């Protein structure tokens, strides 16, 4: 509302700036010749000053004086002064058009460009809001501001790291966990979290680096379920499915009944069972395919990948989707298409974006490079 009031006042002021001179009293303008005469007079007096000061020789001064006098004589004083006509039809017409043009052009143009309903959002005002009303993003921003000011607050990093993980800001989570470990020392939860963040940053692949973190966690707490779960996952990803299955089954037997990890482990077990059938295929895509003939299964998987591809063409800003697509093509042995998908994914987010870096790292972990 305030905006519309301001806009109206500004428009009114601008229109008046056009209207008032047009409606103002008649004023006779001076002829240009009068102005010239003044300049020549001033030149003459300047010449006199210079001559008196000895800056120029008397002969030169005399010559210059004669020259200025000739210019004055040449002035055509007969030139008529500008008309100070009363309001003619033309004036009225131009006045109306000009005065109307100001609001019409400005409101029309602004209507196209502006976002009149969007208030200013200075950072301080957003940070000062009641935490209960803030979005998670804003809370995170507040925590980040705090940590930027106190970068050695290990507890702060410890709190922030799992939030990053949940927000899928995996590389930030990696940094936060590392800071927490550096400042507050090792703990199984932190090492396991670090491993999870590293793995997720690489699109779910449990890399050697992630394995190191999980193993460190198990050293501190042999019963840490997250570390055990992901290490088994790493085994499965390496193709050592029986060992992975054994590890998960061992977890099931030791985990307490109410552990939230039970569900995840059970799901992983059923997927790895499927995987044993459709070896080498991404587990979650082939649930229904396990009972089909190999040809049908291949066709179905390709159809699924194609539909994912199509979906990404429609809605390209889906980082997880792109990584899934690239992985699918790699798994299908279609390196060219994988590379193409990688390129398209990077193009969507821009080559310098966080996502693009993630894609490149992810692709590299699959043994794929953008250009070969």
């Amino acid at each position, binding site marked *: 509302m305030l*905006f519309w009031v*301001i*806009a109206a006042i*500004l*428009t009114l*002021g*601008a229109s*008046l*700036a*056009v209207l*008032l*001179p*047009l409606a*103002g009293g*008649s*004023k*006779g*303008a*001076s002829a*240009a010749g*009068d*102005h*010239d005469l*003044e*300049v020549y007079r*001033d030149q003459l007096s300047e010449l006199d000053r*210079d001559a008196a*000061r*000895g*800056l120029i*020789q008397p002969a*030169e001064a005399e*010559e*210059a004086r004669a020259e200025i006098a000739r210019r004055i004589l040449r002035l055509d004083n007969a030139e008529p002064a*500008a*008309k100070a006509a009363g*309001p*003619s039809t*033309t004036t009225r017409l*131009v006045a109306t058009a*000009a005065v109307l*043009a*100001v*609001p019409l*052009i*400005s409101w029309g*143009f*602004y209507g196209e*460009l*502006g*976002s009149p309903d*969007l208030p*200013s*959002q*200075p950072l*301080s*005002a957003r940070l000062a809001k009641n935490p209960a009303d803030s979005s998670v993003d*804003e809370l995170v921003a507040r925590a980040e*501001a705090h940590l930027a000011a106190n*970068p050695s607050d290990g507890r702060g990093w410890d709190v922030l790291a799992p939030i990053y993980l949940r927000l899928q800001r995996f590389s930030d989570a990696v940094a936060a966990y590392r800071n927490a470990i550096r400042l507050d020392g090792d703990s199984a939860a932190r090492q396991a979290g670090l491993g999870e963040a590293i793995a997720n940053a690489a699109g779910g692949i449990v890399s050697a680096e992630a394995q190191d973190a999980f193993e460190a966690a198990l050293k501190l707490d042999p019963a840490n379920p997250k570390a055990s779960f992901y290490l088994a996952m790493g085994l499965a990803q390496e193709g050592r499915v029986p060992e992975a299955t054994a590890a998960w089954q061992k977890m099931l037997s030791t985990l307490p009944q109410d552990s939230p990890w039970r569900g995840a482990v059970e799901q992983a077990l059923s997927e790895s069972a499927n995987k044993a059938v459709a070896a080498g295929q991404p587990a979650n895509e082939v649930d229904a395919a396990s009972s089909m003939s190999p040809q049908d299964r291949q066709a179905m998987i390709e159809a699924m990948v194609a539909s994912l591809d199509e979906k990404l063409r429609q809605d390209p800003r889906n980082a997880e989707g792109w990584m899934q697509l690239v992985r699918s093509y790699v798994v299908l042995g279609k390196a060219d298409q994988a590379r193409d998908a990688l390129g398209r994914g990077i193009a969507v987010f821009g080559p310098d974006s966080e996502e693009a870096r993630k894609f490149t790292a992810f692709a590299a972990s699959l043994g794929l490079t953008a250009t070969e």
Partner: protein
Amino acid sequence: MVEAGHFALVLAFALALVQTLVPLVGARTGNSRMMAVGGPVAVTGFALTVLSFATLATAYASSDFSVANVWENSHSLQPLIYKITGTWGNHEGSMLLWVLILTFFGALVAVFGGNLPATLRANVLAVQGAIGATFFLFILTTSNPFIRMNPAPIEGRDLNPILQDLGLAIHPPLLYLGYVGFSICFSFSVAALIEGRIDASWARWVRPWTLVAWMFLTGGIAMGSYWAYYELGWGGFWFWDPVENASFMPWLAGTALLHSAIVMEKRSALKIWTLLLAILTFSLSLLGTFLVRSGVLTSVHAFATDPTRGVFILCMLTLFIGGSLALFALRASRLTAGGLFHPISREGALILNNLFLTTATATVLIGTLYPLAVEALTADKISVGAPFFNLTFGPLMVPLLVVVPFGPLLAWKRGDLFAVAQRLMAAFAAALLAVLVTALFIDGTSAFAALGVGLAFWLICGALTDLAVKSGFGTVAPDVMLRRLVGLPRSVFGTALAHFGLGLTTLGIVGTLCFGTEKILSMRAGETVELSGQTLRFEGLYPSQGPNYSEDRGRFALLGADGSTTSEITSAKRFYPVRQMTTTESGIKTIGFSQLYLSLGDQATDGSVVVRVWWKPLVTLIWGGGLVMMAGAAMSLMDRRLRVGAPSRRRKPTGAVPSASLP
């Protein structure tokens, strides 16, 4: 209230259209009311642009990331000063600054132009309005800084670290004050062409504007050069980079204009040439804008590369340069030529100045555009760098500098070269002495160096001779001379100061290029290096944390003759995590007029660091000379003549044009 600023910008565009058309029609039909519209509209347009710019600056200062432009070029952790300077540290914001200055100058004409002939004033404001309207349209359609984001991102993407510097805070505004200042000269020229006559007051109006624009442009170029010198860490003060050339060309043409406008004002001669020069100077400013903003060049200044912008600016360039030159071709024959003069005279000297300066401008223009033309025509990529400019620009400048001291001493119409040469004997002797001293005691290996020092002293002493002769040194009693010196017109002082400054800059350039030394070596903590009599000890690398960067500071101790530390110099490698960028902060120690310049390179695995050390004798004079030139321009601006200018209201109460205040 971001949107109010956005609306004010649109409104200013609408007013600029009115400012173009209504006074123009009024001047053609002789309707004084329509002519009178120009003033209030120009002032209101300026006020609206101020509001718009202030809104954007506020959004930057308060990190309002709902404004896309703020989000792209700012970060909440940046120091407040760089948040604010970030307003014009990007394409959109800098274009807004450009129109802000344009409307400011337009408003100045409206406010102080009451004593101009009404039609001239109306036409000038109309041309200003047209330039303004085009730039407003450019901003609104291709480079709108007020595009919003909803929901607002939490954190911004940070300003390019090399732009987070105080030099950047000053450089663009000064440069734009210069560029855009020439728009007034352009508008006056086009207005004169539209009317088909040049008023006697024309030159009196154009000259102060040229001085103002030239003064700021000089400052802008000097500041930019110093910024590049210390921020880029390469230790060079001028790279003949296309973007530098883009600002240097208007400066050269503007310097020519400054001198030809004197002839025009004093002698009513060179009218047509001055008019053309005014058009060319602003055209080169526009060309500079095109080169920098369209992204056709490869340079640090290319914030953005966007073909739609390039095409828009190219159309703008064609419209204004082509239009004004076409108008010139049509109308120039109607303008009357001025007084006659002998080739050896003040006029002749100023024409010589113009000849050299415009030719120099042309060589810079060719050197800058030739690679673009070659690439467009043959797809070959070439670069034209310092070797080309040294070969062409140098030979043009040296003779010009040699004749500079003669100019102010020659009489108008017909001068006596022999008498002037006699008066300059002392200056010549001083220059000769400087050559001998340099060759015998400092460096006898380079004749160029000795002659360069001589040339600089010739300029400096020539400027002093000018003042001495005009105050009657040696011909009148000392007290009379002193009284005369004080009573000299300010413009005489201005000329002498500007030429003195030119001499200082020349001395600085010669000193740095001919006597500078440098060493590149890899150093470990505790090692010392000796360069041109200065001994430095590397104390080691120390990590440190800034507000939005972390850095490794390399500390160096400057050792005195007895081995004790006399002062400390720090050079740092900074890392800006948001943009994942590293910058080098050079370490500079000023000793007299000279500087010791340190730059850190990479750290090797064995703990040693590559260090580059320069000794730059007299280097500060390069920019100091620029400051003196600016002071000269300011001094000239204070000249009574330029302030009185045209007819006073006292004598013509009925002729006064309505005062141009806000309604």
